[in-house]
């Protein structure tokens, strides 16, 4: 794993935000690594542990707990569809079905511990997320860091034109 100097510099700066305990920087370091490498590898866990002078298990237990950290490669465009009540009432399950159909993703093998399904060409991946806090404008979804409101399940082909 090759952490570019620029990224390491950014990480080192983040660590200074926690003068009392380096361990506090576990989440920010993992975020920076995930943003760059797209997911958290075993090497990234080791690297983080070395950086923060922790046993690797103290990093791994964080990675495995938080849904925001991925342990497998997502697609180039990672889609998170809000599953929770208000969005579900506004059609988020229909949105999920339509997006899967459009991207050719099969979600039948996903589970609580492995929630992400990836398209065969690796371009798209998708998962349900719990409440994205925009209940008044459902159904909502995120594509990488972009946020989208009131996404029409009938118009997902046009929607995905932005992500080719």
């Amino acid at each position: 794993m090759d952490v570019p100097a620029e990224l390491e510099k950014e990480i080192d700066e983040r660590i200074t935000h926690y003068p009392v305990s380096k361990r506090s920087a576990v989440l920010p370091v993992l975020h920076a690594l995930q943003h760059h490498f797209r997911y958290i590898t075993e090497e990234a866990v080791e690297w983080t542990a070395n950086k923060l002078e922790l046993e690797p298990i103290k990093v791994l237990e964080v990675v495995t707990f938080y849904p925001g950290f991925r342990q497998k490669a997502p697609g180039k465009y990672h889609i998170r569809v809000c599953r929770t009540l208000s969005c579900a009432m506004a059609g988020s399950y229909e949105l999920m079905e339509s997006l899967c159909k459009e991207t050719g993703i099969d979600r039948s093998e996903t589970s609580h511990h492995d929630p992400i399904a990836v398209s065969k060409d690796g371009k798209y991946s998708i998962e349900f997320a719990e409440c994205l806090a925009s209940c008044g404008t459902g159904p909502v979804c995120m594509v990488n860091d972009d946020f989208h409101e009131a996404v029409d399940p009938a118009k997902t082909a046009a929607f995905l034109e932005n992500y080719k």
Partner: protein
Amino acid sequence: MGKKKIKYIEGKEPHEREYRLVFKNVDREGWDPSIETFLKEDGYKQLKKALKMKPAEITEEVKKSGLRGRGGAGFPTGVKWGFIPPNNEKPVYLICNADESEPGTFKDRYIIHQDPHQLVEGMIISCFAVGANTAYIYIREEFPEGAEILEQAIAEAHDHGFLGDNILDSGFDLQIYVHRGAGAYICGEETGLIESLEGKRPYPRIKPPYFPAALGLYMCPTIVNNVESLCDVKHIMEMGGDEYAKLGKPRNTGTRILCVSGDVQEPGYFEVEVGSVTMGEVINDLCGGLKKGRKLKAVIPGGSSAKVLRAGETYKIKQGDEDVEIGLEDIPMDFDTLAACGSMAGSGGVIVIDDSRPIEWVLNNINTFYAHESCGQCTPCREGSLWMKKVTDRVVNGQASPDDIDTLYSVAKNIDGRTICAFGEACSWPTESFIEKFKDELVAATNPDNSGELVSPESELAAAGLK
């Protein structure tokens, strides 16, 4: 103030029943999150005023204002601040809880994205009041743009001397850092949040002894306040505690942002004086009524953890000294009345449910959320939240027997009150209240033909003639 004529983006004007204080600049025409725009509107003026006061005087104003925490529990903010031990010699921390994740709640999102300096100013004043020199904004991971906007706002405040060492020559030092979560609902629980900020799994701590005001971040006194509450502090400084307390109702003071979603014509956010609108007015006036041809079935009044209220029910409440009986649509939206009606104002997230929704489908959606979000620390919650989901999965799929509804109720009752943190109540109250209010409909979704013999490992062995 809220009454000044402000131009809003066309189509996003506040409703005439609103009183915009915290949301004054949300959807405002020509408004942007930069410090220049904020300074043009007397930005950081209240900070300058606060720095000339004694910290204890600010806390006193907040106490006088009667402000109750806007995150969910409704605990008085000034009283919380007062819990820092008087002889404390350890560093004090302040954390802004921007982990907005209670289903049905979507107010902090707009403050953070559109008016970040209001929050930063409120935080600096609050830090000065409680004596914190380091503060963190714990923001949910799903607001990546919000985190950037806040970091930009903090950098701008530094450049203008509102943050850093010796702020505006007052001798007061403060650093604020943005800390991103990673998608776990439990981090909204203040002690879970603190564990997360320490770089650990966010397993909540037991209270006592771990009341954050005494033993919080790094075992130091820590004040955790919601985004909206910290913004309110700025307005309390501007108005004075006594004036602020005139808004709303006694014990339920100020304004409150109601977030309405679900089966209404126009869902959205509405900042109103606490208790100034009834549930019926929220649905029919603020949100343009129910969808065409539909009848009201139920309302979840304060985020998905709040107990459900059924249309057609009546509630006995006190109005002044009188006992009166009111219906669901007559409930004024304040902390005490919603509590008296058996639910709670919670986080201000109102979810409206009409007669097109099978009630078991609604409950199953909520149970799926809690089964996913239980942190797994306490057995009743870890196991129970999953079982509640499994049982309602069966109901939804037509595989449940009528007895399953009683089992479901008993599972919920065995979580409630038996866990370290309030997630136990949060996850069991929906099931308890849905069964108490809609048992007929839930049972109707089951089938007695599904009540076969109980299958257990022992019975399977016996059936195979092995025992």
